[in-house]
């Protein structure tokens, strides 16, 4: 007789009276099932070693892994010169390209990128500088660059640059703080999800306290195009900082420029184990009191600055405090020594 082969537990329980009948029959034929035995077996057996730790990432330092590590510490200050009026000019070259990106060991994602990486280069300058971005589109789709910040509207990245086209964005950088940039061509979800985004840091004129600095972009990748991410990462590679912890010094100030460019999921989050940090949302308000906590969340486009002091040697785990994100790639360690 026909039988629904993929009857899930839930749909089976919906059988109601049929289920009750089955239970009656089941008690009569209980000696024919292994249910009782396996229940006893489960009670007694000890989980194997491999089951206790969850996923252990490969130790191979692949191209994708290297990309994530480069993104952590690499800041693009542009080509510096001085304008006639005395202001600093910084020139950047950003190219939109179609690039296959390794987002986890052996898994390739067909990305659209700025300068062949996801996230794109971290653009960094000082408040008041004039930044000039030479944008070139070498892909088969129109793209643009929309910078978050305060600037003339004709420099806002709303005009799509056609395939093969070029455009120069030029404006005075303000306000000081942590920002992001991304493509702003419709359909927005596809253009962002495919990888066209990066961090944009504007330093205050009066420098922040000296610190070891890291750059992090939280993102996700939808492999089967169903509008749901299958892999979540920081800087574009799953478990990059679990495979190799980030080394920091005990007692030293650590500063993290953190943003969320995850598509499809409403929010992403950052949680630190065994410690707290000061969190400055956007980092643009010099009068702001920080949020002293161990967990913060950001919607897409939100960003902030975390300042952490690690009090004692040890490995401090950090991850999304959304378990699914954490176990699908967004998890790492700081190793304080």
């Amino acid at each position, binding site marked *: 007789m026909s039988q629904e082969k993929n009857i899930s537990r839930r749909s089976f329980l919906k*059988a109601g009276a049929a289920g009750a009948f089955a239970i009656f029959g089941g008690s009569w034929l209980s000696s024919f099932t292994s249910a009782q035995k396996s229940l006893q077996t*489960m009670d007694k057996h000890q989980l194997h070693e491999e089951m206790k730790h969850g996923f252990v990432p490969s130790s191979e330092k692949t191209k994708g892994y290297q990309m994530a590590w480069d993104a952590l510490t690499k800041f693009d200050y542009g080509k510096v010169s001085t304008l006639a009026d005395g202001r600093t000019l910084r020139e950047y070259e950003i190219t939109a390209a179609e690039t296959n990106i390794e987002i986890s060991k052996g*898994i390739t994602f067909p990305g659209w990128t700025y300068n062949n990486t996801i996230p794109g280069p971290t653009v960094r300058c000082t408040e008041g500088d004039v930044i000039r971005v030479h944008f070139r589109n070498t892909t088969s789709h129109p793209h643009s660059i929309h910078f978050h910040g305060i600037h003339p509207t004709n420099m806002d990245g709303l005009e799509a640059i056609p395939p093969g086209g070029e455009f120069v964005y030029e404006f005075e950088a303000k306000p000081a703080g942590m920002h992001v940039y991304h493509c702003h061509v419709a359909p927005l979800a596809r253009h962002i999800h495919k990888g066209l985004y990066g961090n944009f840091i504007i330093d205050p004129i009066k420098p922040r306290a000296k610190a070891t600095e890291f750059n992090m972009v939280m993102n996700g990748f939808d492999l089967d195009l169903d509008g749901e991410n299958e892999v979540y990462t920081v800087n574009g590679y799953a478990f990059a900082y679990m495979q190799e912890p980030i080394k920091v010094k005990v007692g030293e100030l650590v500063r993290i420029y953190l943003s969320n460019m995850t598509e499809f999921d409403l929010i992403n989050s950052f949680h630190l184990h065994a410690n707290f940090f000061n969190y400055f949302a956007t980092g643009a308000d010099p009068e702001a009191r920080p949020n002293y906590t161990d967990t913060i969340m950001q919607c897409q486009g939100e960003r902030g600055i975390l300042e952490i002091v690690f009090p004692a040697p040890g490995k401090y785990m950090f991850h999304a405090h959304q378990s699914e994100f954490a176990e699908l790639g967004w998890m790492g360690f700081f190793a304080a020594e």
Partner: protein
Amino acid sequence: MQKYRMIFWGILPIILLTAIIVWIVNNGTGVSNNPAAPIEVLNIEKIKLDENGFEVKVLNSGPEEVTIAQVVVDDSFWNAEFAPSDTLQRFETGTINIPYPWVYGDPHEIKLITSSGLIFSGEVAVATDTPKASPELFWQYALIGFYVGIVPVGLGLLWYPFLRRFTTKGMHAILALTVGLLFFLAVDTIEEGLEMAAGAPGVFQGTGLVWMGALLSFLFLVAIDQSNDKKISRASAQGKSLSYKIAAGIGLHNFGEGLAIGAAFASGEAALGTFLVIGFTLHNITEGVGIASPLLKERPTWKTFVSLAAIAGGPAILGTWVGGFIFNDTLAALFFGIGAGAILQVIYAISKMIVKQSSDKGLSPVSWINFGGLTMGILLMYVTALLVNF
């Protein structure tokens, strides 16, 4: 000379074909066409559960080799061991061992992500230890098959004395009832086969196997029947041979039922398996009536009834064993097709018999009472089938 010319024209197309193939191999087709997306097919054939976790059997039925880059269980990256390798060539099978603390009674989902980023899913509907082959389990499955197959058919055959007190018209009505129930079984068997085919790797043409199996087994049995017709001179032997054919057709169908039950037990749906046992038992008792009806004019010995019950019901035991220990969607689809064909052949034989006897006695082959019998047969199967569908 005529002979050589004949040979020449026979060989020429082959030579030209070879030349064209060699040219294409060396120079390409001239049509450059990269597929817009990678073409990969990975079939998850079986998932076993034991105290170590999951053992997943996979088959690469796509056109190119496939590399499994990552295993994901319930939306968590998980480590796994691949044998012989994480890369499978076309038609190669592999085994993935996933150490995992599965939860008794819960569903789990296993996803395999290939290096191209394609995702293939397998589901564990209700987690429980997969039964291991053992003499005890063989015996248990045999008992289940016995309850589903032999017992109900045997009980159905016990209606024989009651049925013998009917007139020719009454006997035809009972034969029509048999046709009705067999028709239901044929449709049901094809549906079951198509369902199995849907789960089979596409490259094996599972759906086609059902229809081809049905057609070939039907014609095969018709051919045997026709060749036997020349040998059978005594009219009294016709009824008995027809009963054996009905029993054989029903036996093939019950093999399929055994497959369903065995697979349900093996995949952890134990309660569902038990439910199927009860439903099939109630459903199959009417099959005994169908088998007995051609014998109504004869005086068979009790040995005949025993062997008929064994032929019709016994395959359920074999089916339960196969479903529980081996199970393969492609072969199941083919087998359901063969079963359907066998049943259709029996319908053909019974109908032919009714028509012949009706013309001999000046009766209508499709009388109201015969139509009633047919309808009753279908209704009986439909109502009892409700017990195993939901």
